[in-house]
């Protein structure tokens, strides 16, 4: 488990899925009625590949106000002990809300074009 996955799982006290099935599973592996057991399983859905622009953290401008963490619709801001640490690029869709909401005069988050070679996932 990567560091970011571990962090995203902390948001919920409901435990993990009892069973993981995906688009390569045979029909016998699926749960009856398509009922998914266990919560906190959205981290299995890697939305990072939707991104065309990615946020970049400019640490020297950051005041750790965590507004980005509050506004991020995908829980993709990695924060611990009151500090903004970076981004969960497996799930960040590159919407740019964090950069928009960043309150410092010199922005601590800027959106840059997604590199073609290295997606970050």
């Amino acid at each position: 488990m990567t560091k970011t996955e571990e962090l995203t799982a902390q948001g919920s006290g409901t435990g993990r899925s009892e069973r993981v099935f995906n688009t390569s599973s045979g029909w016998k592996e699926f749960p009856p009625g398509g009922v998914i057991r266990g919560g906190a399983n959205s981290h299995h859905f890697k939305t990072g590949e939707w991104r065309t622009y990615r946020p970049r953290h400019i640490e020297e401008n950051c005041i750790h106000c965590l507004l980005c963490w509050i506004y991020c619709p995908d829980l993709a801001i990695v924060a611990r002990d009151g500090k903004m640490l970076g981004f969960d690029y497996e799930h960040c869709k590159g919407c740019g809300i964090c950069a928009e909401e960043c309150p410092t005069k010199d922005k601590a988050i800027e959106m840059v074009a997604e590199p073609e070679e290295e997606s970050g996932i």
Partner: protein
Amino acid sequence: MGSEVLAQKETRYRALSGNEAAAQAMRQIEPVVVAAYPITPQTEIVQLFSNFVSDGLVRTEFVPVESEHSALSAVVGAASSGVRAMTATSSNGLALMFEILNIASGLRLPIVMTVVNRALSAPINIHCDHGDTMGVRDAGWIQLYAENAQETYDNLIQAVRIAEHPAVRLPVMVAVDGFIVSHGIENVEMLDDQTVKTFIGTFQPDFSLLDPDHIVTIGPLVLQDSYFEIKRLQVEAVEAAYQVITEVGLDFEKVSGRCYQLVEEYRMEEAETAVVALGSTAGNFKEVVDQFQARGVPVGLLKLRVFRPFPAEQVRRALARCRAVAVMDRAHSLSGQGGPLFTEVKAALQGTGFPAGSMVNYVYGLGGREITLEMAQRVVEDLQKLAKGSEGDQVLPVNYLGLRE
């Protein structure tokens, strides 16, 4: 029995209409939630059950709703929270439920519903035919058809066990002929409340939306990549239902003395011709079979109690020795191929060497058109001609019984 005055004797029967029998079964099942919308000829079930609620005879949460779509939606919600939930409807009400019927079965919710059969509009009509339940035959529900008020009661109680069986987990509809059975008063032997409660046991849900310690997601979006797999899984439940329905029937016989199987073979042992029917008409044919057998005509009746899943194996076995078969459809599928029961029986006999021309269809009773003994006798007479195969005695593949030309 002479003309002497008989002393009153204890009877184990009560005089109940089919609707009363259904409402009494629901009272004994005592589901946690009932949501329903009244429609003729089902209205009495809802009315009687709401009386039971207001009289404190059941602890059920009764939800009056503004449509059948809402009724079944509320029941789906209740069943998803892990409780027993029931409803009842008829005709256009069932048609309005169509979307939710598929959701209930797709989510594998063990809902039990009485459907009092009534013709679909248009033209508008309140009387019996099977166009409503046959119209939803592929919605993934198990379908049981009752011959009379007793079977209505018995099927409903068994339906709970069938639906909730871990290998099945499918909704079940119990079809009852509108007015003919729903409003006719007949002898019904009820089980005592405790026997029913013991028979159905406690519902052990697979999941509950209201259990925060075991979170589930129901109804997720499942696209091209997995929908097919989940539907294939549903087929397993349907396949499992054959055995479960049979087992529950055997268990029910232990508590009631009344035997229920997928099909009922009536005097089929020596039969060379057979009538296939379901619902209240089956009883008429039992009478006619007795009349003809008394004259040495080897005709029998194959009554289908279960239409979904279709008991193809039992149909094949029962009809294997027959030379001619008449299939009675109280619905017309307007398919150009005869009624729905006819096409199913034909499909079941496919590959058995049964000659296609020896199987005929009678569409009857649409919109409550009566079926008389004479009509039933005519069917059996036609069958004898067909079995002889004599020239000039051709019977059309699809016939309309009781229709004015």
